[in-house]
């Protein structure tokens, strides 16, 4: 299935924030997690994640820090802030509203909200 570009773009911020809410992470691992969660349906252009992370950092939603894990390369880790949690909650609220409206319109009531993690 090919998901519309605008839809992918709109869901990018909440998705990244939700992944960082699970645990702190770094770019490549975040993308792997996106594929995992969406069963490979959400195809991002990998590079686009980094400008997005920049934006989230500028807005104060995430903190970032260079660290040197086991290997010799250093790596930039991202962690969600309180503001990021608040933004995520707001995103959730908006998506739930949209999902509920769509669910009602399609007569399938509770199907979409389930997909958003709250029945």
């Amino acid at each position, binding site marked *: 299935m090919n998901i519309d570009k605008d839809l992918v773009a709109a869901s990018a911020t909440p998705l990244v924030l939700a992944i960082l809410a699970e645990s702190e992470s770094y770019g490549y691992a975040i993308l792997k997690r996106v594929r995992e969660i969406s069963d490979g349906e959400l195809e991002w252009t990998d590079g*686009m994640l980094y400008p997005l992370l920049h934006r989230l950092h*500028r807005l104060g939603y995430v903190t970032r820090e260079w660290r040197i894990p086991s290997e010799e390369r250093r790596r930039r880790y991202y962690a969600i802030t309180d503001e990021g949690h608040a933004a995520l909650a707001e995103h959730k609220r908006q998506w739930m509203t949209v999902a509920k409206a769509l669910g009602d319109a399609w007569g399938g009531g509770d199907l979409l909200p389930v997909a958003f993690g709250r029945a």
Partner: protein
Amino acid sequence: MDQLELEIEGWRAFVEQSPAVDGRDVEELEDHLRDQIADLTEAGLTADEAFLIAVKRLGSIDEISREFARENSGRLWRQLTAPGASDLEQTGRWWRQALLFAIAAAVTFQIAFLAAGTPPGDSSWLVRNASLLVLPFLAGYFVARRRLSWNQVLVTAAPFVVAAVVINVYPFIDGGSTELLAASHLPVVLWFVVAYPYMNGVTRSHERRMDFVRFTGEWFIYYVLISLGGGVLVGLTLAVLEPAGVDPDQIAQWVLPWGSAGAVIVAAWLVETKQRVIENMAPVLTMVFTPLFALMLAGAAVVYAVTGLGGAFNRELLGVFDALLVVVLGLVLYGISARDPLQGPGWMDRIQLVAVVSALVLDLMVLGVMVARIGELGFTPNRTAALGLNILLFVSLVGTAWLSARFLAGQSTFNRLERWQTTYLPVFGVWAAAVVVVLPPLFSFS
């Protein structure tokens, strides 16, 4: 493996060419690329294949750097989308458009100036209406350039009509202080009105508001430059023609009005068209003047904290202080708008904080004296306007000082500081409008 390293090296060099992607971002992207290559090789691909696929997955570097640039600052992005051939044609058209509006403003102002009678500057009608004769053309220029819809044109025009009615229908007592206050606050109000077409009608966007702040600062610099050039020109003309028996007053009367009105639009056009020129110059000017102002303010704060303000305080000094505080706020605002929001705290931010805190101390002293004075002698139009302005400045400075201190301490982001400024900005416009519209009737137009 060596071959792969070479290929990664080449890729890195290519990415580094992009001005929008800084070294650390490149490092981060390279880290990503290496992870991807490692995973793909593990899945059985050769290093070569893995590299190709990893690069392809990462996406077009052009697109990524454009996205970075858009994120880093609105302006860099505009630079990246460099003008193509068709844009150049556009520039030609805009040039004519700007000239048209400039001439219209110049002619209107010149006619009004002559109609107001001689000796010039004597008529309070002209003083009151000066900004109304020029700024509608600036608004019109932006309306045309941004191709606003008819609804937006109406929204732009309405405040001008209201202002024209208010300023001419109110029965001001000639030479009274409410008239002077209205005349001096009206340009501020109308400048905020110009913001609407400038921002394409999107007034809630913080980025667009910041753009307008930047525009205001750059417009001011261009206007000063043009005025200086014009001054030299007029001076030389006088020197050349006076011996030939030409009356200097005649030249002043025919050149100054249309020149100063037309320059308003020409400066705006220059800001938008020759942006790269001013972009390089304006940050340098702020970099030079912010420390100087910080030094001067800190000195003044110390002096007046020791000697006390009460003795020296009079109306002129109050005016000087208010002008100083407004200039400081302008400098801070422009400094913030021209700064790269992603950079960490630096020495310029510290100096700016010194300037802001000193200004705060001065403002507090002014407020103290003013409240005491009002308590003693009661409200007058001038005192009310000054008190209001100082309270607004005080709140703005407190917020700025607090947020930049937190930013310097690493407890807050620069974005917060930017947002505070852009959120607070309309308050000044509303206050200026209140001084024009509400204050005169309150003090029965005295």
